[in-house]
């Protein structure tokens, strides 16, 4: 199979969905410009014309409400934001309008809208270009929230999101755009609401979101060297949450670590921990543990940023504590390759 980067998989999916369905259009600030949202919308304006791929004024609320109106008229808008923080300017439309419109009309106004947004760490992005905000969206009934990790899932889950008749928030970690993997060339759909077991293991279950799957896989490899066998599960769709494979895994391993790419307090990790605690109580050998962002705004300076974001090392240490293992010597292991690869300015 052909290898493709996550970013190119997103672009290929958008191209194929626009080809197969004339009601799909893609828009947002900077979408048709020469940088094309880190390349993910490159070529769309040229191929499909300015009516189906266009830039917008800096008007997040209006341009989100615009999607709702267009969806009511049978279109399938894909609205793109270069940073998830900009969605905070559109929360009235997302939370007060989109999430409940179909409910308020007794099911007569389905809203096939996709909102793509880039999340997470880049290059010294500071407090306002660095968040994930998963639980802002997963908290709201009527929204689906998707956070793919692999290039294949990026393509298949985005296609499913575009074809879904509900508002979908589609969150892409900035660093994932470079990940390369096998991706089918033809158009395909990965169903929403289905978790993926990234790696099987018997000693401990890690439930990881978005970029934390990369870190969890890295940690699992390091831990395997010490004879510790980790199972990694990527929920892929954060809402609705496919809890069954997680429960099945924890019943097998007896230990669950939630590695979230977000703050812990009232976060998605708390939801997973609560459900696992309820459903696996008798099988847990240890209380469910969580790791995530430090409970601070994101600092800009790298030395502090390295401590703000969790990584494979954070995971290794948490696993060791949960298994009553002594701390391994991790000197010589490179934990920040992607951060060094990202050379800015944005």
């Amino acid at each position, binding site marked *: 199979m052909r290898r493709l980067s996550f970013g190119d998989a997103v672009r290929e999916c958008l191209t194929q969905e626009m080809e197969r369905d004339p009601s799909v*259009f893609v828009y947002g600030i900077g979408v048709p410009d020469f940088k094309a949202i880190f390349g993910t919308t490159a070529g769309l304006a040229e191929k499909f014309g300015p*009516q*189906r791929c266009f830039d*917008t*004024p800096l*008007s997040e*609320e*209006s*341009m*989100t*409400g*615009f*999607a*709702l*109106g*267009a*969806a*009511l*008229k*049978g*279109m399938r*808008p894909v609205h793109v934001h270069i940073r998830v923080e900009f969605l905070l300017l559109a929360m*009235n*439309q997302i939370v*007060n*309008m989109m999430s409940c*419109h*179909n*409910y*308020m*009309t*007794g*099911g*007569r*106004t389905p809203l096939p809208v996709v909102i793509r947004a880039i999340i997470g760490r880049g290059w010294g992005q500071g407090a306002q270009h660095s968040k994930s905000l998963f639980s802002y969206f997963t908290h709201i*009934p*009527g929204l*689906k929230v998707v956070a793919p990790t692999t290039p294949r899932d990026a393509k298949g889950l985005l296609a499913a999101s575009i074809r879904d008749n*509900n508002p979908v928030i589609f969150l892409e970690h900035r660093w994932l755009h470079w990940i390369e993997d096998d991706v089918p060339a033809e158009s395909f759909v990965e169903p929403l609401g289905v978790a993926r077991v990234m790696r099987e293991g018997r000693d401990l279950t890690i439930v990881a979101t978005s970029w934390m799957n990369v870190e969890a896989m890295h940690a699992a490899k390091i831990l395997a060297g010490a004879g510790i066998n980790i199972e990694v599960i990527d929920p892929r769709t954060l809402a*609705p949450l496919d809890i069954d494979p997680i429960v099945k895994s924890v019943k097998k391993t007896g230990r669950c670590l939630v590695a979230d790419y977000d703050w812990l307090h009232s976060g998605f990790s708390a939801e997973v921990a609560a459900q696992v605690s309820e459903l696996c109580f008798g099988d847990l050998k240890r209380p469910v543990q969580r790791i995530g962002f430090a409970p601070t705004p994101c600092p800009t300076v790298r030395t502090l940023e390295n401590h703000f974001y969790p990584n494979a090392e954070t995971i290794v240490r948490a696993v060791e504590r949960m298994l009553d293992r002594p701390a391994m010597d991790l000197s010589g292991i490179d934990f920040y390759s992607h951060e060094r690869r990202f050379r800015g300015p944005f």
Partner: protein
Amino acid sequence: MLTAPNERLKRLIRQTLLIRRIEERVIELYPSDKIQSPVHLSIGQEPVAVGLCEAMTPQDILFTTYRGHAYYIAKGGTLPELMAELYGRSGGVSGGKAGSMHLAAPEVGMMGSSAVVASTIPHGVGAALAAKLRGEKQAVITVFGDGATEEGVYHESLNFAVLHKVPVLFVCENNALAVHTSLAERQAFDTESHAKAYGINTTVIEDGNDLIKIGDVTAKLLASLRAGGGPEWLMIKTYRYKEHVGPGDDFDAGYRKRADMEPWWKSDPLNRYADIVKGMEAEVKAEIDRAVAFAEASAPPAPEQLLTDVE
């Protein structure tokens, strides 16, 4: 000046009367707690909705506000389903999930109404651009109050609509009040000249009781949209007789005077054409009685309805 009563005027008066009387029935029923949610009555403002909707076909699309009973009826929504919705019954237009503030009847182009001021303005812009892209000659009106013109999303929507020549009619239903606060206490700008700054054509109707004029002006503006013209902006001045929310009068609350109402009461088509109205009362009452009976007979939604329509 209103022209001599003819069939068209009679039709418009009848619709105004129907809206007035059904909302008066709401006032009567309200103390019984059969309607257990806030109601924002359009009493005094009905001619705006009636005139605007006269110019629209059932396929044309309307977005409006929480003060939406008049629009629902004028756009062609059915009365029994409206009353059952206010009662929170399974026979309601949205099975009780919408209630008074979120009325919608997509089958007749009434696409939604919002309790958060200004929020439906961009919906009209999106629907209008979608209709244009699809090559459909549907006209779209998005209605909002004068308070909405203070919200950022209003400015954002005007800018985008002009920039992309979106065929949408923005209608500011100006009752000069945001809850209990006058226009002068809220706005440093003149609403019309501010809109003009975006390069949009503006029209102002001073007498929001002039059914024929509202109908005629709207028809002309919609014809321009259908012919491929860019967005239009229309302000219709009107007057709210009742309190912001609820069934009562509040002229003794101190924020306005009963005398303010006098000129509007005089030009109120239901007073002006009292003789015509008189002849319509019995039929209108019977229609409302049937709607109320339907609501009374309709069962509350089954508990399992709570979990439907969310995905």
